[in-house]
């Protein structure tokens, strides 16, 4: 049959409206379920409403409203039963859920098969298990619409208490939120949603509508508000998409909806910004490449210092990499103009290498001083972290260590870029020196002129205290605080 002709028929329109409403409310409600680690409870409630439907059928016959009330009652009974066991017995939480819902489900199934024996009863177990979205009646639509309005209104009104109590239950209590009441109210809303979904996806698969769109949404945003919007949207797309797919491929709608929801989840899991596999792999590759490049820079820097000729073989050996890899990394460095054609570090490359060595040696110093680890134990740790420590954290560490100039192995720690090669703060007592003609910091030069200490002035160190220095020059003495002394470049007078 022609697809367009089919979906224009009344039963198809009703099915579409019902799925849209169910997708929306289950998606939104599911977010709180997932965040509260209650996914299993959603599954349990789905199964457990069955005996309620049976009892309602016995009492009032085939009546949608009757089913609704019976199902909600059974749902609440289940929620109370689970909570009671969890609080009063030494049974684990998930086990408690399992005990209660399988018992309820079994009673329901037995009940249905028992009343189906009587003649003229059109109560089909299959409809409850997998839904019967193509047989939605007006009354079902009204009930679903009412439920939808109630669920959405409650979430909007109770957004703040739900947010706080889901994130930190104890904190919610301290500011006077009635956490238990809220929990049972959420259970009530959940029973409503489950009953409303019965026709669309059935009791077995309702949990897919609750947790799959919500989990997908959680991959897509880092703010609760937007997660709720995404979850509603994805729920609708899954439900409608699944229904249409079922019509096209002439299959059962409930499972088709669950499959579409799962496909959307897989897509998000792959391409989601930040949390998706694709992005994470990309970031890992980027990091790996950066570490290779940085290790190469350091290696070049050391080879430069020891005036060993730079060859592919020497680099390959000292880095433990294949010559091919070394060539690749070198060409990447050249493209970033960190090295020149002769594999010599450019100005930019030298600065980067010095920054890395600073990170490495500062971290080693920090570990040695603050944790008491032996210098021989900390190299590996520093080797890894030198690539990862952010600049501002290094500055904090530097400051808290009092701007050390050598690491625990006795190697010099290069100063932060923009700091002098020979800072005044490292001048030993009694030593003569000259203010160097080249100064890295313009402001410091201005300050030096103000103090009558222009470049070239001869100075002598009289006293040092934690980076602060007392100097004598032109017959006067001057105390320079550490934050200035660190920035003044000097030349030793032989």
């Amino acid at each position: 049959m022609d697809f367009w002709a089919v979906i224009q028929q009344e039963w198809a329109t009703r099915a579409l409206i019902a799925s849209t409403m169910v997708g929306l409310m289950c998606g939104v409600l599911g977010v709180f379920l997932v965040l509260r680690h209650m996914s299993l409870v959603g599954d349990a409630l789905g199964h457990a409403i069955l005996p309620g439907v049976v009892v309602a059928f016995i009492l009032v016959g085939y009546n949608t409203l009757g089913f609704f009330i019976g199902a909600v009652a059974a749902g609440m009974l289940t929620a109370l039963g689970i909570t009671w066991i969890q609080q009063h017995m030494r049974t684990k939480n998930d086990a408690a859920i399992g005990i209660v819902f399988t018992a309820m489900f079994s009673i329901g199934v037995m009940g249905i098969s028992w009343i189906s024996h009587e003649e003229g009863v059109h109560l089909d177990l299959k409809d409850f298990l997998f839904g019967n979205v193509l047989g939605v009646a007006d009354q079902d639509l009204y009930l679903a619409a009412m439920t939808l309005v109630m669920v959405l209104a409650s979430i909007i009104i109770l957004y703040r208490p739900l947010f706080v109590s889901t994130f930190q239950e104890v904190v919610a209590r301290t500011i006077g939120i009635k956490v238990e009441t809220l929990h049972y109210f959420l259970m009530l809303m959940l029973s409503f949603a489950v009953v409303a979904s019965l026709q669309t996806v059935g009791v077995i698969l309702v949990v897919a509508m609750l947790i799959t769109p919500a989990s997908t949404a959680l991959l897509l945003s880092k703010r609760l508000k937007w997660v709720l919007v995404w979850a509603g949207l994805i729920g609708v797309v899954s439900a409608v998409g699944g229904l249409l797919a079922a019509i096209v491929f002439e299959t059962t709608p409930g499972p088709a909806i669950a499959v579409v929801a799962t496909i959307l989840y897989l897509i998000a899991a792959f391409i989601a910004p930040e949390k998706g596999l694709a992005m994470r792999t990309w970031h890992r590759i980027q990091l790996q490449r950066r570490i290779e490049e940085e290790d190469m820079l350091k290696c070049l820097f050391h080879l430069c210092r020891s005036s060993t000729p730079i060859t592919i073989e020497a680099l390959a050996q000292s880095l433990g990499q294949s010559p091919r890899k070394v060539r690749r990394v070198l060409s990447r460095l050249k493209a970033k103009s960190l090295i020149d054609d002769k594999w010599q570090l450019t100005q930019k490359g030298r600065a980067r290498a010095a920054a890395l060595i600073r990170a490495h040696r500062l971290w080693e110093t920090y570990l040695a001083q603050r944790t008491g680890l032996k210098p021989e134990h900390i190299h590996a740790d520093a080797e890894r972290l030198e690539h990862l420590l952010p600049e501002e954290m290094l500055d904090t560490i530097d400051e808290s260590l009092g701007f050390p100039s050598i690491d625990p192995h006795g190697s010099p720690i290069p100063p932060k870029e923009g700091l002098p090669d020979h800072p005044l703060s490292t001048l030993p007592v009694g030593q003569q020196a000259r203010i160097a003609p080249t100064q890295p910091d313009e402001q410091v030069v201005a300050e030096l002129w103000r103090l009558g200490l222009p470049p070239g002035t001869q100075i002598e160190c009289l006293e040092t205290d934690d980076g602060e220095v007392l100097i004598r020059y032109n017959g006067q003495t001057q105390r320079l605080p550490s934050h200035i002394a660190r920035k003044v470049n000097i030349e030793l007078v032989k």
Partner: protein
Amino acid sequence: MIDVPAISIRGLSVSYGRKRVLSNIWLDIEPGVVVGIVGPNGAGKSTLFKAIMGLLDQYMGEVHVLGKPVEEVRKQVAYIPQRDDIDWHFPATVYDIVVMGRYPHKGLLRRLDAQDHAIVRQALQDMDIAQLQHRQIGELSGGQQQRVFLARALAQQADILLLDEPFVGVDVTTEERIIQILKKLARSGKTMLVVHHDLSTVQAYFDKVVMLNQRLIAYGDTDTTFTEENIAATYRSQLPILHQAGLVE
């Protein structure tokens, strides 16, 4: 108002079933101090916190906060739970968390106004995390996370802050920084109660110390109260460990 203690506990006893957790505690804490709470596991430290937050169902005695029953002054008490109780993947940014501090003042539906947002921004600045406000909370370091919860307490404009082991999982530098922040808050009249395990830093960190082991062993200025004798009385069951650590002779 100056005479009203920040927290006043009169004859508090708490039992869980048959097990006595706190026994006849009498304690007045004056405002504007940083108080360390020390004691072995099971000493009743978290029960004491629950009492001050008004979360105990059954207890004997009276607990007053700022001269009133706790239920009436909930807004004034901010609780900063242990870091490992928190789901760090939760979809919330730093700003979302700090703005929670305004909820108790707003009820369910009243919109947050410009003043609320100004208070939140100020709290973020005071804790030096304004530049992190759009980060998801899991993307922060331990110290930064701790400052987010302090900022929420500031946004709540609470006078009493209860911190449960705030230094667990935080590096030494940040630990010192947080204690500086607490001392500054104390100078502005707020009262901080801190559950703390590292006995070697008690002397440096706290103005006053509560030494608890079901009974109140001692309360007073850290200089005069945190003595070897009191430590031994508090940690009686764990003496061998303390001995090894060199904290008692």
